[in-house]
C-alpha cells in the first residue's frame, strides 16, 4: 500500500511540468533507487552474516548445551471406535433446545359474561371469587376478567378494590339494567 502510494507520487512528480535549469528539482526516482540499493546492500550483508554464523556454528565451545530437539507431534493412533466415541461425546455436549408446546386455549368470554349477568340479576354486589366460580382454571379466570373489563367499559358494572391486592368487588351500575347487550339504545 505504502509502496503503491510512493510509486504514484513519483509518477505524478514526473508528469508535472518543470522549468529548465531548475537546480532545486531532484529526480523523484533517485529516492526509490537509493532505497532499493540500500536494501540490496542489506541483502548482501545478510549473506555475509549467514556465512559467518555457519562457520562459527562448526566450532563448539566448552559447556555447549545443545538445544532440546523439537519432537514432531506423535501420529494419531486411533481406530473407528475411538472416533465414533469421540463424536458421541461431542454430540452429547450439544445442549438440547428448550421447546415449549403452545396450546391454543379459547377464552370463553361470552360464557363468562352470561354468568356475570346471572349473578347481577340475583345480587347488586358480589366478590371476585364468586365471579370466577369454584375450581376456576386459568381459562375461566382470564375469561371472567376480560368479561368484567368489557362490562365495566359498557357501564354495566362498576369494579372496585377496597385495598391493594384485595379481591375485586363487582357492583351493578345503577343506570344499567339486567339486559346489557343494548346499553347504547337505552342511553339514547
Amino acid at each position, binding site marked *: 500500500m*505504502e*509502496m503503491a502510494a510512493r510509486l504514484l507520487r513519483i509518477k505524478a512528480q514526473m508528469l508535472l511540468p518543470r522549468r529548465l535549469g531548475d537546480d532545486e528539482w531532484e*529526480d523523484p526516482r*533517485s529516492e526509490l*533507487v*537509493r*532505497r*532499493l*540499493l*540500500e*536494501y*540490496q*546492500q*542489506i*541483502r*548482501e*550483508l*545478510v549473506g*555475509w*552474516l*549467514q556465512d*559467518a*554464523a*555457519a*562457520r*562459527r*556454528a*562448526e*566450532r*563448539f*565451545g*566448552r*559447556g*555447549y548445551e*545443545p*538445544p532440546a530437539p523439537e519432537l514432531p507431534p506423535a501420529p494419531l493412533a486411533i481406530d473407528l471406535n475411538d472416533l465414533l466415541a469421540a463424536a458421541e461425546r461431542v454430540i452429547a455436549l450439544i445442549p438440547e433446545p428448550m421447546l415449549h408446546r403452545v396450546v391454543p386455549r379459547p377464552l370463553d368470554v361470552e360464557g363468562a359474561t352470561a354468568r356475570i349477568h346471572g349473578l347481577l340479576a340475583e345480587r347488586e354486589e358480589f366478590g371476585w371469587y364468586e365471579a370466577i366460580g369454584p375450581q376456576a382454571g386459568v381459562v375461566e379466570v382470564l375469561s371472567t376478567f376480560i368479561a368484567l373489563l368489557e362490562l365495566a367499559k359498557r357501564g354495566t358494572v362498576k369494579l372496585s378494590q377496597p385495598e391493594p391486592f384485595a379481591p375485586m368487588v363487582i357492583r351493578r351500575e345503577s343506570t344499567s339494567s339486567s339486559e346489557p347487550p343494548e346499553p347504547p339504545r337505552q342511553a339514547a
Partner: protein
Amino acid sequence: MNQPRPLSPLSPRARLLEAALFAAARPLTLEELATLDGEAGEAGTQAALDELRAAWSGADHGVELVELAGGWQFLTRAEYAEPLERAQFALRPRRLSPAAMETLAIIAYRQPVGRIEVDEIRGVDSGAVIDKLLERGLIEVVTRGEGLGRPLLYGTTPQFLEILGLADLGDLPRLDELAVALRPPAPAQEPE
C-alpha cells in the same frame, strides 16, 4: 606409535591462563585474564596470552584458541564438526531466520537505531523480529532517541559477535567493500 613432537614448555603464567580458558564456557577478556595473577598486569598477561596462542596456533590440536566477542575462548576445530555432531556430543545451533538476519544486519551497521528506521529499510513491520532478537540477547536497548516519544534505540551485544565468530564489530565487512556500495546522497545511476 609416533613419538609426539616435544613442545616447548609453557611458562607458569601461560599455564594458568590455559587452565582458566579451558574451564570457562565463554570468551574471557584480557582484563578478566589479568585478574588471575595480580602481579602480571596487562602487559604480563598479554605476553602469557601470546605464548599460549603460539602453542595452540598449529594444526596439532583438536581445539584452537579463538578471539571472540572481545575475549578469548577454546573452540573445537571446524573439521571435527561432523563427527562431534554425529555422536551427539554437540549440535550446531539453529540458524537465524532471514528476517532476523536482515534486522541484525541493519542494527549492526546503523546502531544505535530505532525500530522505525529498521521498518523503513526492510519495508515491513519488524516489531516481532526485534522482540525475538532481544529475547535471544543478540541486541539490546542502548539509548533512547531524541525524536517524538523518545524511541528506543537498539545496538548489538557481545552475544551477537559470539554467534558470528567475530572478535569485534570491526570484523564486519566495510560497506564500501560490498558489491553494492552506496555513496549517499549520490544520484546512484548504476544498480550494480
